[in-house]
Structures are given as C-alpha cells and as structure tokens.
C-alpha cells in the first residue's frame, strides 16, 4: 500500500520526482549464486586506518559465510558524533554504526537500535565482561554489541618534568607544572565527562533511571551536597591554577603541557611526541580540609549497534556481521593496530593485553571509576558548566550557587513528568502540573481538580508536556453520570466534559486506561 501511495504521488506531482527519487528505497536481497547480497552503510571511528581494517574484516566475514554477501560502504564518523547524526534521520541512517556509551539512551529512545535476538544476546553476554554487557543493556534488554572496554581516562605525563613520586597528588602535580611553565591539560570546564571525576572522588553520584523506551524517569543526583562542595573546592585547585588548560588533546604535549588527562585513543599521538619520556598513571588525589580524595572517573565502553530493519533476513545477516566484528578475533586485531582495549574476556586474558601499560593504568584507575550507566543527554550540557563555576568563583557561596543552579536545571528535566488534566481551568497548559494536584502510585494516577463555571467545562488527561498521550474518554467506568463522554473525531480530541462545576477527583489507570470520576 505504501509503495502504491508513493508511486501515485510521483505520478501526480511530477516535480516531486526530484525529491522522492533520492529517497527511493533500494532493492535488497537479490539472490545471486545462492548468496543473499546486501548493500549496507557502516559508520566506524574516523581514526586513521579504522575504515580500512573494517573493510578487511567484512571481506573476511563474506568469505567465511557463503550464504551472505555484504557490500559495505564504510564511512568514518567520530563515535561521539555518531548518535547525533543518526538521530537526525534514522530512516536513512547507517545499518551498522559505532558510538560511545553515553549515547545509548538517546538512540534507544529514537528507535535507532534493534534488540538482539536471544541467541545473539547469550553469545554477547558470555563473551564480554560484565561492565560491557551492562553498558549495552537498557531495561534488561541487550540493544548493542560491546566493542571496547577502554572508554575511560587516566593520566599521561612527561617524565622529563614530572617524577614518579609526584603523580599521586593533584596539588603537587599542578605546582610542578606551574614551576616548569607547563600546562596541566584536563577538560575540567568543557566536558562533564571529565569534571565529574572530582565529584565521584568525594562520593557524589548521579544515577539515572530509564523506562523500557529509553525515556528517563528519575535521577538520584547528590552533586549538590556537602560532598559536592568539597569536590568543587578540589576542582578549584586545578581551575584556579595558571597551569590549567581545559583540553584532552594528546598533541598538547607538543604545546607545553606536562600532564594530559585522556584515554587510550591518544596513545599513538603521545608516544610520537614524548617517546621514552611518556609516563602513564591513574589519576591523582586531592586534599580538601585535611582529607584526601582520589579522583574518580567514568569507565565505559564503545558499542556497535544495528539499525532496526523491516526485512528479517537482512536483520539476521547484520546481527551475524555485528557479532563477528565485535568478536574476539576482530577486537584483538583492533588492540594490536590501535591499542583499543577489548571488552571480550578471552581477548582481555591474552598476555599482550594484560601487560599493556595504558590498559594497566586504566585498570588502576578503574578501581576508583564509576561505571557509566545511562545518563540523560542534557546532563552533559548542564554539568560541564561546573568547571567554569569553580574557575570564576570568589567564595564558597559562589560555588554553592553554581551547585544550586545545577540542581535546578537537573530537576527541571523532570518537571514535565507526571500527568495533567488539561482544560480551561489551567488554560490548556499541559506543562503545568501544579493547578491539578496529582499523585502517582505505579500505574495509578489520581488528580484532584476544581472545575470552574465556564462555557466549555471539558478537558483531557495527558502526560505532562506531551499532547500525544491522550488518555481518551471511552473507558470511564465510574462517574459517567457526571460527564459527557465526547469524541470529536474531526480533530481527534477525546475530551471529558463535566456537566457542572465543582471539585472532582479523577483517578485513572495508565495501562488499562480506565477512568473513575468522583465529585467531592
């Protein structure tokens, strides 16, 4: 039917040809010599050589699986950018793509990831470390394939400036940098991924919960606390120093940095610059009010995902390809070529991997690391500004004000949660949950509202801020005598209209959509 609609459109609007021809679906799965052939697009890291290696690996996959012929177009897209680009247009996005863990919830919510089949789930769970499996899971379901277990950061330093006995204390390191006119590079004010290290050090947490669709439902965030204030003071040690440089670029070593906090991906750059002078260590500790805190960090993974397909054969082929590309053999290959830390437990057990100095430093840091779960996308934009607060603050009150603003912004992300009975009584404001007092208990919501006398005493129950979630009026099981159930098919509204003004208690069940109305 859809095809028919489309072609008729082309027929009638001849000029549309120009537009629609571009999006016309490619025919897939033509059988040639028994092998099903698929044209797919793959996005991998834009780092040097990754696309070439992926190409080789896919060719090997083709050779090993005679029933499948994959013709891949491989493009290099940064793993931190991939999600943004994917979400822009899921329909024409790549079939297979790699992304950093923090993007997972967004992608699930945008429907850009296909859930793994049961067999594939079991394989992934068996082959990868627990952290990696957890990172690929949303609400109990595995949505993607762990690619690396090295998405964390630690400290690189220049041995000609920093000696090994200095690497344990932040203040000592900062002082050594200042004395030698060198920079201390850490993205303390341009990325929340890095400046959260200070908060994790003092025991602050930011735990986010999602529902099965990737939508965030609640957060336990303790950044705005006494411990958070301590963390801010710790951040001041770095932020207020003249040596501070908010960057995580490995090439900073050639631009006057003696310390750079970054991850395994910068290894080759730094090795080229420092040679034998390169030192790696876990992050230092900082001391505030006589107490010492070891800097925390995020530990996470890079993941590979498959876009949901309508053709099960193709979906299955892509699933097999993704399993292969994230399997032991391919992960080891990437480790050997680029130093990417494997998530595959067998690969991790090999001597080369377990003795790799950067991975050893990462492992040392991992003892203090917080596994990166699903975090609200906006949090990264909100929390990074805390670095600027630490830098510009002139008193503890300024630090506290920064934390208060932070908390307010986080809370505002959830102010649109809950349900609201919109109508004339609250000016049809579906973001205003205050005028209709609501309590929620699991699936059951109860709303108390005053219906004033007006020409149109009607309204409907929707999720706050979301008109698309109309509860309808068809299933009023109690109190039908108090209202007119009204279904205006013309504009799709299903309004409940009260027969007389007064104070009402409306309770509804979110799954059965049953509504009860009682006049108080």
């Amino acid at each position, binding site marked *: 039917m859809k095809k028919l*609609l489309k072609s*008729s*459109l082309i*027929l*009638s609007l001849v*000029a549309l040809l120009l537009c629609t021809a571009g999006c016309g679906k490619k025919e897939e799965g033509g059988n040639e010599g028994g092998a099903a052939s698929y044209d797919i697009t793959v996005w991998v890291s834009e780092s040097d050589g990754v696309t070439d290696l992926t190409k080789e690996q896919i060719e090997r996959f083709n050779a090993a699986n005679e029933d499948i012929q994959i013709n891949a177009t491989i493009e290099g897209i940064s793993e931190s950018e991939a999600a*943004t680009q994917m*979400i822009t*247009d*899921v*329909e024409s996005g790549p079939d297979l793509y790699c992304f950093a863990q923090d993007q997972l919830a*967004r992608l699930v*919510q*945008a*429907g*850009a990831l*296909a859930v793994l*089949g049961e067999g*594939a789930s079991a394989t992934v769970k068996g082959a990868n470390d627990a952290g990696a499996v957890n990172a690929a899971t949303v609400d109990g379901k595995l949505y993607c394939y762990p690619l690396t277990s090295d998405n964390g950061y630690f400290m690189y330093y220049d041995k000609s400036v920093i000696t090994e006995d200095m690497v344990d204390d932040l203040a000592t390191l900062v002082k050594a940098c*200042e004395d030698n006119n060198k*920079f201390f590079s850490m993205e303390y*004010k341009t990325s929340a991924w890095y400046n959260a290290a200070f908060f994790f050090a003092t025991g602050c947490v930011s735990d986010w919960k999602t529902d099965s*669709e990737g939508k965030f439902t609640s957060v336990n965030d303790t950044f705005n606390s006494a411990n958070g204030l301590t963390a801010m003071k710790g951040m001041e040690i770095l932020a207020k120093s*003249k*040596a501070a*440089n908010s960057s995580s670029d490995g090439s900073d070593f050639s*631009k006057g940095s003696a310390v750079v906090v970054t991850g395994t991906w910068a290894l080759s750059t730094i090795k080229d610059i420092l040679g034998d002078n390169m030192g790696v260590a876990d992050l230092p500790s900082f001391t505030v009010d006589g107490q010492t805190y070891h800097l925390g960090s995020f530990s996470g993974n890079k993941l590979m995902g498959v876009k*949901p*397909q*309508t053709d*099960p*054969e193709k*979906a*299955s082929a892509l699933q097999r390809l993704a399993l292969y590309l994230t399997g032991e053999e391919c992960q080891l290959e990437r480790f050997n070529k680029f130093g990417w830390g494997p998530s595959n437990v067998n690969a991790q057990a090999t001597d080369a991997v377990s003795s790799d100095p950067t991975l050893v430093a990462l492992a040392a840091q991992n003892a203090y690391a917080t596994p990166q779960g699903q975090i*609200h996308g*906006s*949090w990264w*934009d*909100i929390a990074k*500004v805390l670095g*600027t607060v630490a*830098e510009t603050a002139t008193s503890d009150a300024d630090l506290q004000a920064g934390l208060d*603003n*932070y908390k*307010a*912004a*986080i*809370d*505002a*992300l959830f*102010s649109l949660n809950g349900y609201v009975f919109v109508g004339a009584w609250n000016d049809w404001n*579906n*973001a205003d949950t205050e005028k209709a007092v609501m309590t929620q208990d699991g699936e059951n919501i109860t709303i108390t509202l005053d219906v004033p006398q007006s020409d149109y005493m009607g309204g409907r129950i929707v999720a706050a*801020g*979301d*008109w*698309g979630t109309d509860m309808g009026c068809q299933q009023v099981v109690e109190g039908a005598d108090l209202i007119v159930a009204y279904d205006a098919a*013309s*504009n*799709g509204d299903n309004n409940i209209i009260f027969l007389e003004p007064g104070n009402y208690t409306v309770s509804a069940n979110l799954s059965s959509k049953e509504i009860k109305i009682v006049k108080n």
Partner: protein
Amino acid sequence: MEKTNNSKNISLFDDIGDLDLLQLTKFQTILYKIIHFFKGIPNGVASLFKYIFSLIKNFFVWIKNDLTDIVQTFVNGDYKTKLSFIIMGFGSIARGQILRGLLFLVFEIVFIVYMYVAGFHWLGKLPTLGTELPGTAYDPRLDTYVRVDGDDSFKCLLYGVLTILFILAFIYTWRLNVKQNKISEEILKSGKKLKSAKDDVSSLLDEQFHKTLLALPLTGIFFFTVLPILFMILVAFTNYDGAHDGYSNLFTWVGMDNFNSLFNLNLGANNLSVAFGEILSWTLIWAFFATFTNYFLGMFVAIMINKKGIKFKKIWRGILVLTSAVPQFISLLYVSKMFSANGLVNGMLLNTGIISDLSHIIRFWEDTTLARVMVIVINIWIGVPYLMLIVTGILMNIPADLYESARIDGANAAQQFFKITLPYMLFVTGPYLLTSFIGNINNFNVIYLLTAGGPDNPKLLTSAGTAGDTDLLVTWLFKITTGAESKYYLASVIGIMIFVVVSFLALIVYNAIPSTRNEEDYS
C-alpha cells in the same frame, strides 16, 4: 551661538516647518528627529494595523466578487460552460481548443486520482500527525527482532502540507477553467476566432515567453525555499525532537507550548527567556560592531591606498586581499588555535620573554570581555579586505570635479570626506550595510569557529544546557539542534524569533537609508 537664542521659543515637540528646522543647532536637529521618530511610532503602528485591516477587507471583497463572477458565469453560460464546472476543460474542447481543454482535463483526473489514492490519507493524518506507532516483531526462525512500520509523523506533515497546496492549486486551476469559458464565450459572441493550439504554443515563445522562462525557477523556489520554510514554521508548533523523531516515535501538535518556554517566566530552569534576552543583546552588539568597524576601517584603508602619492598600490591591495585567498573557515580555525592558552601567540610571548611565566598568559578565549573583543577584531581582519575592494570601486566613481570645486572653495580633507565621500558612500552602499548587518546577526562561521560560543556562562544555565558569552542566536540554535536532545522544535522557534528581529530591523533601516528615498540625488 546666536541661533540657539532665536530658536528658544520653538518647542521640539511640535511639528516644525523646514525653515524653522534650519534655525536649530545641530544638536537640536538631532534631538528633534529622535523625538519625532518616537512620536511617529504610535501613528506608524496604527497605520500598519489599518493597512493589515484593509488587506483583510480587500481579500474578502475580492472573494465576494470572485464568487459572484463564478455564479454569473454559470447562470449566463451555455451548456458547454455549465458542464465545464464539473468536467474541467469540456468547454474548451467543445469549442475547438483541444490542447487547453485536455490540459485542464488531465489535471482534474490526476487530482482526483491522487486525492483518492493518497491525498485523503495524508490529509486525514495531518491533524494528529499519525496515530499508529511503529513496533517490533520477533522472528523466531532467524532469532531477530524486526521493525514493523507505522505512521511517520515527518511524512504526515510533509505530504499533508503538500496535499493542501495541491488542493489550492486545483482550486486555482478550476477557477482558471471557469474564467476561460467566460472569456471564450465573449470572444465567440463578438465574432472573433479562438486561439488554436498552435497559437497557444507559439505564444509561449513570444508574448508569454516570461512564463516559459520562469516556470523552472519558480518550481525550484517552491520546492527548495517555500516548502522548507513552511515546513520549518510548522515544526515550531510540534514537539519534533530527538525523542520524537517521527520515524520511531511520533510527534504531534503542541500549539504554542514551545513559544511558552521562551516567554513564560513560571517555568523555572525550563524557562529560556533570560538566556534568550542575553544572547539577543550580545547578538545586536556584535552585529553593530562587526558591521561598522569593517565598514569604516575598510573605507579608511581604501582611501589611504587610493591617495595620490602612495606608492606600490597594487602590493598593498594584494597583501590585504591575500586573507581572503585562504578559505575563511580554515583561517578562522587556525586563528582560534593560535590564540588559545597554549597556542602560538602565548608561546611566542613566553619564548621572547615578553611574559615571564604562565601566570601572565593571556587567556583570549576564556575571559568574557577579551573573547568578545577578539571576535570583533578578528572579524575586522577577515572583513576589511572585502570592504576595501568594494569601496575602491566606488571611490573611483565619485566625480573628481566635486573634489576640485571643494578644494577651490577651501574645504580641507576632513570636510571633503564628510561632505562628499561619506554621503556618496552611504548612498551607494546603504543596502549593502543593511544586508551585512543582517548577515552579521546570523554570522555563524566567525563565532562558532573561533569560540564555539564560549566562554560558558553559568548564569545562563537552563535545562537545555548552558549558553556562552559570545553565542549568537544562530550558534545557540545550532547547539540546541545538535545538542543532547536535538530539540528541532525549539530551534524552529528561535529561527522564527530571529526572523522577527531581523525583519523588524530591516524594515526600519530600509525605510531610513537615503538610497531608497532620494533616488535622484546622485544619479
């Protein structure tokens, strides 16, 4: 200052005749103009409303006349005309104008088929933008999950709008068809012959040639300009974002909710009005300085180089133009790195001993005022050469005898500049100034590539993240669109607000610049 005494009893708040105006001092004249500008605002607004009202009135009058005309055509027409009301083109065919008639008929058939097959489908989806969510299904044989297509809000909106436009086009064509019958009847009554198909075709290459030429460009403008703009405006009234992308999760109409977040102060950290106000004011400051520093410095440089007695003119020009030989975004990125805390400039200062240690490093991009000054200065560097080239051309066009007679009258260089060069320049480049001011309001490149909007301002922190002190509205819009939640609807709202600001300024300035008022002055 005798004149001041004379003009004492003239009130600046009253309307003053031309003669009295001449008596005022310069300061008073300016004051008088400012006062009258503001005095004129209520009248201006009132006349604007009157104009809009008369437009609406005219529209209804026009509709009324048109409907009467249609009815009269039907009542007075013969059976061919009457049948044409239902079967488009019937009259034309019956009267021998086969080609015209066929075109009408084919259009009608295409329209009916389209509406039946697809049009009503999309039209029905438009009020809700889709109701059927796409789902997933498990394929146990292959152990995979597959997508089951549902509605796509994006397509519902796009094709819904297209269908409405198609219906409007049909109504227009139907009206044309009716009119055609009326005209044909009149021509036949007067005893003349109707045009043949051959005449029609040849007229497209002759007296109707403009239509032939414009057909393609107009189609292009419709699909690549009008339709996207219409679509984007509609997006501002939906909740289209990363989480409601239309393909996987439907989006829907939300009325004015999105504008609410800009103007409703009760939303706490969801309210963007403070950030919007701050960014708007910096945007205007930036646009003002970026435009006028470039303008006057460019003019200055051009006059200097143009001066008699300056040697190696071509070399000076060549050196300046070199900045535009390198693509702007490359030079901007490079300059951005150059001025960073660990960049080339600070490195040089350190190495030459001008600054002794790290504590004296200049953090160009990390201090609000410094960053703002830097973007304006760097903008001068890349903008002046263009201005210089434009101005050089205009300078050579100013009649030399003007200067000659000025010199004979004893005018000095400054007087010549302010009385001859500048007025001439403002006259010729007035529209350019306006467009470059608007261009600077939307100058994404310079700001984003140099500072990416930074340094971040903690005071502007909202639930949509924070904005920086050098952010323009357009870079902020970019951050929101590409940010964590991809809030397309908000970007669309900000886009509309930018349009309002820009069109407001453009209309005022356009009416004020001399180029549009005194066309004769310099011809």
